[in-house]
């Protein structure tokens, strides 16, 4: 909505320094929490959440407030919001394959489903979104397309993060081809490769 942009401009010019709510969105296991931890460690020295190979490790919105980022000649104050992974289907059997008992897997599925709904509800409140994708996976999924389309409709600035560059079969170009209208930053949240470039993009486009 144009009024939102206008309001943002007034706030920037006349208001006090805005704290940007930066939301990390994407499918499960794309590396959102690894990236959130990297950002938080770089600027505050503290992590945000626990990381696991089992999908849906983040089942509640994890927050790290008042992160001060200095990049591209700018100083940004951000509240980092690490969202649960968004999925269209949650199946406990997937968790059992990672060694969880049936009961623990079913409980995890319930919490994960609640997490997906929470993440969607938070869309109303984020100012800028980092959409994190796994570069080794096909980006043309219903989840990615729906997230991007919805953020576009809400006029929320989007930076796409093509993550897991450290893996041999990473193909970030597939993500660039899939979403040519957006800024795509290739990174490895795990090794920290090109994360500085991401800070530059955040400084440039976050509002």
């Amino acid at each position, binding site marked *: 909505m144009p009024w939102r942009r206008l309001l943002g401009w007034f706030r920037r010019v006349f208001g006090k320094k805005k704290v940007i709510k930066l939301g990390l969105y994407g499918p499960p296991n794309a590396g959102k929490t690894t990236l959130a931890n990297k950002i938080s460690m770089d600027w505050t020295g503290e992590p945000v959440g626990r990381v696991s190979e089992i999908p849906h490790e983040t089942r509640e919105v994890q927050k790290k407030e008042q992160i001060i980022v200095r990049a591209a000649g700018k100083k940004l104050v951000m509240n980092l919001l690490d969202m649960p992974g968004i999925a269209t*289907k949650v199946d406990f059997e997937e968790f059992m394959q990672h060694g969880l008992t049936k009961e623990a897997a079913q409980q995890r599925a319930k919490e994960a*489903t609640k997490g997906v709904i929470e993440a969607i509800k938070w869309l109303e409140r984020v100012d800028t979104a980092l959409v994190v994708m796994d570069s080794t996976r096909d980006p043309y999924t*219903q989840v990615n397309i729906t997230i991007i389309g919805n953020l576009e409709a809400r006029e929320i600035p989007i930076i796409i993060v093509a993550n897991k560059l450290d893996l041999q079969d990473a193909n970030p170009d597939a993500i660039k081809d899939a979403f040519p209208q957006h800024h795509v930053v290739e990174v490895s949240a795990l090794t920290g490769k090109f994360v500085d470039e991401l800070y530059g993009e955040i400084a440039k486009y976050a509002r």
Partner: protein
Amino acid sequence: MPHKCARCGKIYDDDSPELIDGCSCGARVFLYLKEKPGRNEEDTVKELKLREMVADDFKRLDREFGIDLKRTGRTIHLDLENLQQIDKGRYRIDIKSLMKGDPLIMKVGEGVYYIDIIDAMSKGRKKG
């Protein structure tokens, strides 16, 4: 033979473009009855109007399209609900509907739904 939309119940003729493009309600799954000697079109429509999707139909859809769904991450939705509990620990979430701002609707049985009215109303307030 006439077809009936599995979601809204609208009847379409055999050669209707909607059978390929999808019903005006957005659904793309249709019910039809096999031709039977002695049953004319009028009877078929009458019978079709009474016929609804049953649990076996959903199971069949899941069996036949489940593999595709797993690969593409798409979901089949023939009802109002945007959160479906298929089994204990198995859920399907219509993220498109939830992101659009629809209230959370969960189907717990044939004809029984739970609607999160607190959430739906708070969304309405925010919009107003």
